Every structure is written in structure tokens, then in C-alpha cells.
């Protein structure tokens, strides 16, 4: 008799110190099923997939793969059982070639008399990438040469390289642009046709309802429900996730360009070779200016350049205060002028992951916190960080907990919240709600709205069109490194009209 389930878990439990991350979790996934897994940050989703993928081991409970008991001790064990996983936070080994990354841990496949057949490995990697239509990568180049999105695509290639019967995708769609999302959906569709299964974690409610068959909802480490996707709406999902009613839309409900005439930032003919050229725009006081584009449009690099992280080959950025035009020299200068930056890659560019929540929150506010002779009173730091933790409902054991122990969403809350704490005048936000659940999203948008009313100017770079449409006064669409069109809120944005310009 054949087994109808590819994977089953019964009463899985996992503790991290006093935290009960998975509490009697039971889940069954059928062959050929596309299952969604959804829940607030810290609800136990990532713990569950780490257990299935052999990254961590369960404390109690049982797992079955194709009807057989399954207890992976290592990720390699999971690979050998044809389970492919793309995890949210960890990426690739930067110091190794792209091709080697695809087969790392299984390099013995290419072993010829004790020596790795690199040519064979690179050929297999290229063939594998083109088989899945994942793009043409120079597989012999180091992974460090790739962008965040390109890395995600290589991670996907790596997960697919084990010819998985069960594919687990944790928050992959938030890191990739629309064109690559379409490709991912086609891969998922292909899996379904072949009778293989996919477990998809995403905070994009519309997306998860659209592409999955069933959705399992987790809250506080417990599976609270599993429903058919076709019976769900985003509002029902929100309620199930947070356990309370989250009213309608969390975006702005006005359709006017609401900002002052005063220009606070002027970008003139900015060019960074290989990324974008001749980009010019003005940012007004109290404006939310959106920037969008496909994967190679240069939108993320533009954000870094405005903050002074990347030095442009041509053009200038001017900070304008009381009619005084000050040229922004670098990121230190930008910070002093009151420009803040929330990067897309929070682990590498934003947070000190091996330091406490307290220090991470206080870092951008050192100048405010310090007293005579630069002395910073610990009590002041504690007060500030505790306030931010409470205001943003950051789930941490204490303010002294290290950042590396927090879930992706809580890390992002800190990444964002610490800038809201300081009195910045301009905030550049690159994918501000990446890996963040609906509750936190709603909170971030409401804080943005409130800050906008108080005169904060925001540059919002995002791969998520709905949030740009929902929040921005003006939207710059970039294509091939150039600003090709500007949309105004008052003229009405539609996803279709923006996509038409982007593609």
C-alpha cells in the first residue's frame, strides 16, 4: 500500500532554554501538496523547518517521511532523504565558488582518486541551473560576488540539486523580485505535477493563498489550524495568526500626495557604474517616496549610494536645511546630518548579531545618550532600549539577549525601531517589511505614517508593489538603472500600470 503522506510529524516538541518553541506540533503533508505555513514572528515556523531539515534536533515527538520513521541528525541527512531546504537567514559560503556552494557537503560526488573534479562540478552546476532556468551564473566565481537576490536563487538551485521529493522554502519570496517570483511559482507548479510536495513559508498573505493548497497556521509554538487556501481570505488569515481581529487594510487610506513643498534632499545625476545612471529626484518634507524596479534595476544600490555607503562615479546628493545646501560626503556625514538607513540585508549590513539587543538599539543614538566627556550612563541605555522593546513588542528574553538568538522578524523590528527612536530627518528604508509578519507590518506602517505627519521624509525601496502602492506619495520606477517613470498617489497607482513600466 502506498503512503499518501510525504511527511508527517506527531507531537513534536522543542525547547530553547525556557522557550517552548514547538509545542506538540503535528502536521501531515500529502504527496503533490503545496502547503503554506504561516504565523507571527517567533511563532515557531522556523524551528519546525529546522527540525525537518536536520539543522536542529527535536526534544520529543516523531517524524515520518513517506511512512518511514525519520530522524535527521544533520542537514546532510535531510538532503540524503531528498528534502531540499532554503532557509530564511543563512545564505551561501562567500569564500567558495558558486558551483561549489551548490554541492557543498556532497563534494564526494565529484571525487576522482581523492581529488575533486572541478570541471565536472562546474559543468554539473551550470547544467543544473539551466535545467531549472535559474539564470546563467559564472559558477567558478566566488559567491561573495552575488547580490542578495542572486544568492537566494543559488540557494534555491542548491535545494533543488538533491532532486527533492519535499521542498521547504522559508521566506524566499521576500528576497526576490517579481520576475524571479514568477519563475519560483512555475517550479512549484512543476513539483505539484510530479506528485512532489512543497512547504512554503511567507508573510505575503495574498501570495500564500494564491499558490498553496492548504495553509497551516502557527501561534506561540502551537499549530492552531490547517485550512484549505481557497476558503481563506487575508483578513481571516490575519485573525488566525495573531488571535485577534486586525481591521481591514493596514496601509494609508488617503489618495492624496501629502507632503510639504520644502525639499529636504536633492539627488542630482547620480551614477554608479554597473548599477544605475543619471538618477535625479527631490525628496520633500513629510513625503514617502517609493522606489521600485526589477532585480537588476539598481534600486538597492541607489539606497546605499544616497546614504553614502557606495561612492558614486558621478553626481551629487544634497541635504537641504533652512535653505542651506550641504553635499553629503559619506555615511558618517549622512548620519550627522540626520539621515538614517534601514538596509535590506539586516544581518550583514545593519545589526551586530553577536551583541545585545540593548547595544544594537542604542548604537544610532549614542550622540543623544552621551553626557559630559562622552560618558554614557548604563541606566539611560537600559531605559531607552526597554522602551523600544516594549513599544515595538520585540520578543526577546531580555535587553541583554544577543541579536543572533532572535527570529528574523524581531531582528527587523530592531533594525527599524532604533532609527525611529533617534530624531532623524530622512530615513532610507530598503525592504522594511522583509521577513516580517502582518502584525508587525501593520505597526511599521502606522509608525511610518505617524512619523510622516511629524515631518519625517522617507525613501522606501521595496520589491513589494502592494506596500509601495499602499504607502507612497510618489513612486519612481527604475528599469535598467534609469528612472523611467514617476507615479503620483493623486493620479492613482495600479499594480498593472507599474508592472507594465517595470517589465
Amino acid at each position, binding site marked *: 500500500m502506498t503512503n499518501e503522506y510525504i511527511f508527517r510529524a506527531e507531537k513534536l516538541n522543542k525547547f530553547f532554554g525556557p522557550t517552548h518553541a514547538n509545542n506538540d506540533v503535528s502536521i501531515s503533508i500529502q504527496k503533490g501538496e503545496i502547503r503554506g505555513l504561516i504565523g507571527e514572528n517567533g511563532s515557531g515556523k522556523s524551528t519546525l523547518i529546522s527540525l525537518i531539515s536536520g*539543522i536542529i534536533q527535536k526534544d520529543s515527538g516523531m517524524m515520518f517521511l513517506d511512512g518511514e520513521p525519520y530522524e535527521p541528525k*544533520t*542537514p*546532510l541527512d535531510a*538532503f540524503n532523504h531528498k528534502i531540499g531546504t532554503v*532557509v530564511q537567514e*543563512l*545564505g*551561501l*559560503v*562567500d*569564500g*567558495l565558488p558558486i558551483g*561549489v*556552494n551548490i554541492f*557543498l*557537503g*556532497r*563534494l*564526494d560526488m565529484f*571525487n576522482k582518486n*581523492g*581529488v*575533486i573534479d*572541478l570541471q565536472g562540478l562546474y559543468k554539473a552546476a551550470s547544467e543544473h541551473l539551466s535545467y531549472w*532556468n535559474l*539564470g*546563467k*551564473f*559564472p559558477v567558478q*566565481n566566488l559567491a561573495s*560576488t552575488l547580490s542578495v537576490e*542572486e544568492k537566494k536563487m543559488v540557494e534555491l538551485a*542548491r535545494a533543488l540539486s538533491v532532486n527533492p521529493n519535499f521542498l521547504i522554502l522559508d521566506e524566499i519570496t521576500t528576497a526576490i523580485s517579481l*520576475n524571479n517570483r*514568477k*519563475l519560483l511559482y512555475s517550479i512549484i507548479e512543476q513539483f505539484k505535477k510530479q506528485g512532489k510536495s512543497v512547504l512554503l513559508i511567507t508573510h505575503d498573505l495574498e501570495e500564500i493563498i494564491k499558490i498553496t493548497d492548504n495553509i497551516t497556521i502557527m501561534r506561540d509554538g502551537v499549530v492552531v489550524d490547517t485550512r484549505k487556501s481557497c476558503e481563506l481570505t487575508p483578513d481571516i488569515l490575519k485573525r488566525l495568526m495573531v488571535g485577534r481581529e486586525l481591521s481591514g487594510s493596514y496601509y494609508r487610506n488617503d489618495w492624496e500626495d501629502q507632503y510639504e513643498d520644502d525639499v529636504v534632499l536633492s539627488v542630482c545625476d547620480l551614477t554608479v557604474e*554597473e548599477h544605475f*545612471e543619471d538618477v535625479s529626484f527631490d525628496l520633500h518634507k513629510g513625503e514617502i517616496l517609493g522606489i521600485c524596479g*526589477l*532585480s*537588476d534595476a539598481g534600486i538597492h544600490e541607489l539606497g546605499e549610494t544616497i546614504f553614502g555607503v557606495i561612492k558614486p562615479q558621478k553626481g551629487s546628493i544634497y541635504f537641504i536645511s533652512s535653505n542651506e545646501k550641504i553635499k553629503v560626503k559619506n555615511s558618517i556625514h549622512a548620519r550627522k546630518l540626520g539621515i538614517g538607513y534601514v538596509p535590506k540585508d539586516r544581518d550583514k549590513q545593519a545589526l551586530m548579531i553577536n551583541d545585545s539587543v540593548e547595544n544594537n538599539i542604542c548604537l544610532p543614538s549614542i550622540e543623544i545618550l552621551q553626557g559630559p566627556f562622552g560618558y554614557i550612563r548604563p541606566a539611560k541605555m537600559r531605559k531607552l532600549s526597554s522602551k523600544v522593546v516594549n513599544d515595538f513588542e520585540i520578543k526577546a528574553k531580555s535587553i541583554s539577549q544577543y541579536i543572533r538568538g532572535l527570529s528574523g522578524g524581531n531582528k527587523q523590528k530592531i533594525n527599524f525601531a532604533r532609527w525611529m527612536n533617534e530624531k532623524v530627518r530622512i530615513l532610507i528604508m530598503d525592504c522594511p517589511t522583509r521577513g516580517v509578519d502582518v502584525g508587525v507590518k501593520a505597526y511599521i506602517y502606522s509608525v511610518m505614517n505617524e512619523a510622516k505627519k511629524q515631518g519625517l521624509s522617507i525613501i522606501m525601496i521595496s520589491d513589494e508593489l502592494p506596500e509601495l502602492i499602499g504607502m507612497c506619495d510618489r513612486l519612481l520606477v527604475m*528599469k*535598467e*538603472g*534609469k528612472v523611467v517613470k514617476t507615479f503620483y498617489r493623486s493620479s492613482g497607482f495600479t499594480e498593472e500600470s507599474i508592472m507594465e513600466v517595470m517589465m
Partner: protein
Amino acid sequence: MKSVDSEKSYSLGKFQERRFLVSRYDIKKLLSVILIIIPYIIFNIFTKGRFMESSNILSILVHAVVPAFVAWGFCFIFTSGIMDLSIGAIMILACIVSGILAIKIGYFGLILGGILVSFALEYINLKCMIKTKIPSWVFGLGMAMIYEGIGALYGASQLKLGKQVVSLGVTARKLGSIPWIIIVLALGLIMAYIIFNRTSIGFDIRAVGSNREVAKMMGVDVTKAIIRGGLVGSVFIGLASAINESYAGRVMPTTGLNSIALIFIPLAVYLLAQAFEQIFNLTVAVIISSVIVESLFNILTILGVPSGTWQQVAVGACVIVCGVLAQRHYKGVVK
């Protein structure tokens, strides 16, 4: 700017541009070689042709062999994040055992003694470091004192017997002289290159050194990778000890952490090789760096700078400069 012909061509477009970097890379490589050669010509003029005399160049090459072998050892040990400071003390013990066995069974004993001691002691170090989770440099300092102590006890026991620390005399000295030392260097390079770049040992150790957590998630057994890499490194350290014993004839035990001074030049070589890593393969860069560092001391000697004073200043400066160069491609990070 890039052209986008289809949905998936963005990657190709980007990398087609990157392909130009390959030619830039070759130019960079050529420029580096020129930049290395120019000072040699200048120094040669400065020393009235003595510096680039064939005998002097050969002498530099011979002196570069032991630091190169030790630096190859570092490639396998330090790359995984293990900063073992007891390697100098291990080398002294390996040299002594190597000498004792060489007198008894010749070249086979010379090489076997060096490798066995280095292999065994490094294995103990790595196992204990992993088990105790003590920072490797702290553990290494402790073990350096213990190994130095063992060497000193041996020296004292020899004195009691009215003997001296083992000396090779004329036995097994060919390994440390031309042409064998150069042949061994070439074999060492081939071995280091293949293991570091073409085996799972090399890839695993590089993965662990680059990002331990990601490597673990990708199925690399981190502990196994560190131990396997460390043991390969210990073979190079053992070979360095055997060559050193054959070249010098006798190595005296030291105390008071003086053994660390033994690894200062190889450390400078390793750091400089890291600085060259974007241009040359690390294992090849080790030889280039070793020759450069040894050339520096050679020039100082030719210019009559006394050893132990200004030359010591030069060693310290050399380690710092090489360290600075090695950090250049790590933006704002102290490794």
C-alpha cells in the same frame, strides 16, 4: 548599462560585464608581478649588484622553504579559525625527534619523526580546543609552555648524561640543501595546491573559515573539517621541521614562550599571502610571500644591519604591514 533581452538575461548581462573583470584581473596580476620585481631591481642597484647575484637569489629561495611549509600548515589550521600559537613549540619537539630518528634510520626517520610528532601534538591540541571550547590562542599559549617544558626537560636530561641536544652532524643533511630542498618545495606546492583547492578537505576548511554556521547548515561536519584540515596542516609543519633539522643540523629547546618567535616569519608570510589572495591562489601566494619576506631580511643583512636589533624591528614591522595588507579587502572589519 546592461541590456535586458529577456526575463532571465539580467544575470547574464551582469556577468558578461564581469567577464571584463577577468582581463582586469590578468592586468592586476601582471602589475603585481611588476611591482614585486621593481623593488628587486632598485635594491640590486642599491647593493651594487650583490642582491641579485645567482648565489644570493638561491640563498633567499633556500631560506624561504621552511617559512613556506609552515605557512602552508597555517593555511589549513588558521583558515578554519584555529589560532594555534603552540606551533613553534611543536616544531622544536618535531625537530628533536626528527634528528634522533634520522641518526638511527636516516632520511626516512628524519621525515617520519617530524610528521609523527607534529601530527600527534596537533591532534591533541585540536581535540582539546574543540572539547574544552577555550579560545584557541589561549589554549595554544598554554600548550606552547607545556611543549617548551618537555623540550627543556629533554635538554636538561641530555646535559645530565654529559651529552648535548641531538645534532645531525653530516647525517641526513641533503634534504636541507640544494637541489633537494628546492625539489621538496616544488612537491610541497603541488601537494598544498591540490589539497587546498581540489579536495573536500580544502573546500570544507574554507567553508568553515568563511562562515561556520552556513557551512554547518550546508552539511559540512564542522568538527571533522577542523580536525582533518588541522592534521593536513600538521603534516606541512612536520615536513618544515624535518627540513629545518636537516638544514640547521640542530635545534635547541627554548623556554619562556620564545618558541613563538619561530612562527613570526611564517605568520608574516601567511598574512602577506592572504593580501595576495585576490590575485594569486593562496598556496601559490605563500611561496611568493615567503620569497619577498626572506628577501627583506637578506637585504638587511647585505646592508650590514645587525641581527637581533634592527632585524627584529623589521620582523615586527613586517608582521604588522602584512596584517594590514591582508585586511584590506575586509571593509571595516578586524578579523
